[in-house]
């Protein structure tokens, strides 16, 4: 299970016999079974976590049990087949996207080499089209005339335990990054397919612990780390101390305060681990500098939403805390921190699922007076939008030389780029605070590559897989590292900050990872500050 040495993996991805490197499989794809061995699958969810979630109102996580992907027998419920087919029927009736995506693919192959998992593993079933065919073949068999008449010849097959195992393997080798959907002539979005596969698998008690434990933590304690209210507060207060010792200014903070103007929600990882900590310190310094009237919440202390990686019901239940807390505290609107999938949920799902947020007001920056019309209904503003607006109005004073130790590049997270269109706000900010360069054009903006560990795949037992799937991103960073001496990969995503750090350490030692707001805070001149020479910005050890 150990991760192979760099030289070994470097060779393997280029020379290992795979569809990506030129080897041609000899059998039809249906003939290849999914084989599980240590290191190629994430650990299954603990039975008690699944049972806990199933006990929560509105959630449905049945058939909890101890099982192992490596076992022949997955201890599926006796009627698993009916459950799956009935589940598929239900979802076809609920999601037009699923029907269209099942019917319209012409297998042109445009998506094939767009997937970071395919590029890193060379496994044919990691071509997005193939991932969808895993489900499409069952759909044809049970729901189409051609499939019923021509069977295998028309690409149909019956659902078997082997098919289910294949679904488990490949729906957890997809990070729902949607890069393939950019290139598909019909906009077929593999994220939708993967979501459906995962939903179906949960119906028969098949899920992974790295997702379901965070979901249950988020539900109970408010954040995926499972931090209880006092611990969450302690963690933020440590960061306040750090900001004070670095800048001489002690940020004023509050928790669960009624009547604050703004509720601030960010992924809990930002207050828990490096390098996210520095981003969180950045928020504290920034809000202090402008005197924002805001509060943190311990109840809604998680921006990220691991429910997105399970099923739409869990996504809704976790997300609902944001509005519930905003309403309870009587704030005017919400500002959200840097996170990728959190922003997919906020931008594309939150208002639909838990709105209308008629108890909130249309967001207006208290500093510049700018009305955020683009968030008029959801009433939640991205920190990069908020910061870019401050800069545009000259409300922030920067000393760019404080970032002279940094040569940055910018990584668009999949979700903010392709599910939101937030691309130029972070770039506008970077222009003002740091010296930075773009990565090659086919690897940024809407064509950005995933960190390789999104959608709950940032678990250590699949490290080799993560290093493989992260290769396209790492490789583009290496290009600017070699050419421009880039030493910092800036991003607006908490999962990125964790996973890209491992990725850089492996492929590109010497390149750090930071949030955009960390770079903002490094360069920010705060009134009344007494800042020593910080060679390493907010990371300087005093």
């Amino acid at each position: 299970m150990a991760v192979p040495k760099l030289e070994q993996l470097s060779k393997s991805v280029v020379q290992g016999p795979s569809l990506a490197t030129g080897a041609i499989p000899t059998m039809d794809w249906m003939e290849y079974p999914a084989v599980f061995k240590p290191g190629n699958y994430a650990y299954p969810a603990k039975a008690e976590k699944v049972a806990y979630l199933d006990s929560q109102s509105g959630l449905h996580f049945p058939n909890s049990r101890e099982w192992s992907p490596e076992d022949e027998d997955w201890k599926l419920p006796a009627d698993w087949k009916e459950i799956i087919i009935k589940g598929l029927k239900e979802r076809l009736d609920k999601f037009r996207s699923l029907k269209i995506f099942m019917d319209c693919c012409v297998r042109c192959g445009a998506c094939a080499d767009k997937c970071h998992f395919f590029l890193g593993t060379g496994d044919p079933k990691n071509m997005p089209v193939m991932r969808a065919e895993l489900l499409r073949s069952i759909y044809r068999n049970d729901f189409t005339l051609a499939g019923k008449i021509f069977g295998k010849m028309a690409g149909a097959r019956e659902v078997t335990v082997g098919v289910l195992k294949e679904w488990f393997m490949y729906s957890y080798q997809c990070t729902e990054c949607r890069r393939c959907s950019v290139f598909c002539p019909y906009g077929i979005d593999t994220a939708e397919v993967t979501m459906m596969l995962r939903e179906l698998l949960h119906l028969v008690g098949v899920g992974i612990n790295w997702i379901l434990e965070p979901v249950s933590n988020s539900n109970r304690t408010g954040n995926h780390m499972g931090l209880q209210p006092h611990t969450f507060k302690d963690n933020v207060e440590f960061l306040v101390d750090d900001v004070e010792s670095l800048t001489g200014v002690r940020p004023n903070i509050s928790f669960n305060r009624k009547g604050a103007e703004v509720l601030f929600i960010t992924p809990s990882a930002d207050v828990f681990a490096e390098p996210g900590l520095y981003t969180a310190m950045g928020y504290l310094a920034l809000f202090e500098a402008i005197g924002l009237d805001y509060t943190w919440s311990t109840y809604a202390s998680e921006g990220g939403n691991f429910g997105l990686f399970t099923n739409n019901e869990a996504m809704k239940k976790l997300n609902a805390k944001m509005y519930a807390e905003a309403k309870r505290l009587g704030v005017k609107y919400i500002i959200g921190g840097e996170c990728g999938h959190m922003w997919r949920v906020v931008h594309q799902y939150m208002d639909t699922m838990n709105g209308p947020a008629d108890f909130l007001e249309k967001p207006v920056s208290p500093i510049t007076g700018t009305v955020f019309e683009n968030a008029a209904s959801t009433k939640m503003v991205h920190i990069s939008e908020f910061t870019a607006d401050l800069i545009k109005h000259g409300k922030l004073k920067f000393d760019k030389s404080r970032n002279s130790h940094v040569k940055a590049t910018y990584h668009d997270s999949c979700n903010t780029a392709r599910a939101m269109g937030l691309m130029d706000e972070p770039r506008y900010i970077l222009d003002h605070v740091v010296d930075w360069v773009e990565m090659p054009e086919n690897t940024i903006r809407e064509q950005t590559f995933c960190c390789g560990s999104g959608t709950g795949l940032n678990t250590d037992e699949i490290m080799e897989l993560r290093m493989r799937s992260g290769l396209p991103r790492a490789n583009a960073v290496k290009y600017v590292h070699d050419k421009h001496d880039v030493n910092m990969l800036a991003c607006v995503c908490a999962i990125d900050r964790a996973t890209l750090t491992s990725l850089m350490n492996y492929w590109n030692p010497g390149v750090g990872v930071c949030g955009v707001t960390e770079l903002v805070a490094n360069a920010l001149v705060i009134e009344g500050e007494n800042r020593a020479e910080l060679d390493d910005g907010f990371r300087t050890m005093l």
Partner: protein
Amino acid sequence: MKYAFSFLAVMALVMIAGLGSQIPGMPYLFGVALPYLAIMIFLGGSVYRVVQWGKSPVPFSIQTTCGQGKSLDFIKHNKLEAPNTTAEVVARMFLEVVTFRSLFRNTKSEIYDGPKITYESSKWLWLFALIFHYSFLVIVLRHMRLFLDPIPFWVGWIETLDGIFQVGAPNWYITDVTILLGCVLLFSRRIATRHVRFISLMNDYFPLVLIFTIALTGILMRYVLRTNIDIVNIKQLLVGLVTFSPTIGAEIGAIFYIHLFLVCALLAYFPFSKLMHFAGVFMSPTRNMKNDSRAKRHVNPWNPRILPHSYAGYEDEFREFMVDAGIPVEKELAPKKDEE
């Protein structure tokens, strides 16, 4: 072999029509009954499929943004790639359908020692698809000469343009060459590109072979077997079909029935196949939705009632810790038992 089977299937169709149409009385089956049946299956089937799609709601706003969304005034909005209004969506869809913009973006990746991955622009698929689809469209439009009386004026324009090189007698149409070329290129690409070959099904080869053969029989009729063909009779039959008064005059050559039968097969096959992408592309939620989901609420008709783990429940569990840590609470701690 999936592609070999496609050839066999089309050969069988050719044989059926070639031989069958020569049996006395059968021309009415091949010339009248089957065309009506095929067009009914095509129209009915296509409408049915679209209605079936339409019956499923679009619960969430899942647009794929391929450019900067509309946000602050000073951030330049990419109206085509992250449309914010209906007009912008229409423009995005129009260009997608007419110019295949997504395919135009296509890149080809290569992995070299290092490792080093490169992504180079690759427009072949886009080009092949354009050649194929536009040839198909022009040919269908040109065929209106045979179905409509009087012939619409624009048919003449299309024919003039299509035959602009003035080569051969009768004058060769460009699209007659390019439709064959398009089929051959797309078919060859399926065989030659390893990952496309791996994913290809019979359902992918068969329509290409069928359309190729339809074009080939049409070309044979126009340029080679002319003497066997009575174009006046054909026009009479086809106009008759359109006006619901079909008559088959003198004998029409077998090649015509083969051509017509293959077209019928294509029409009947259409609604049950991937060829429905012609309608599906308009209904794809990642492309036809506005990126205004934070400005306007999108409604999910089946939105389930699910409440969050309540704040009250949360405070009940952690109240003591919260009070200790100085975090405000809704309900103060209950007095200790021994103080009661």
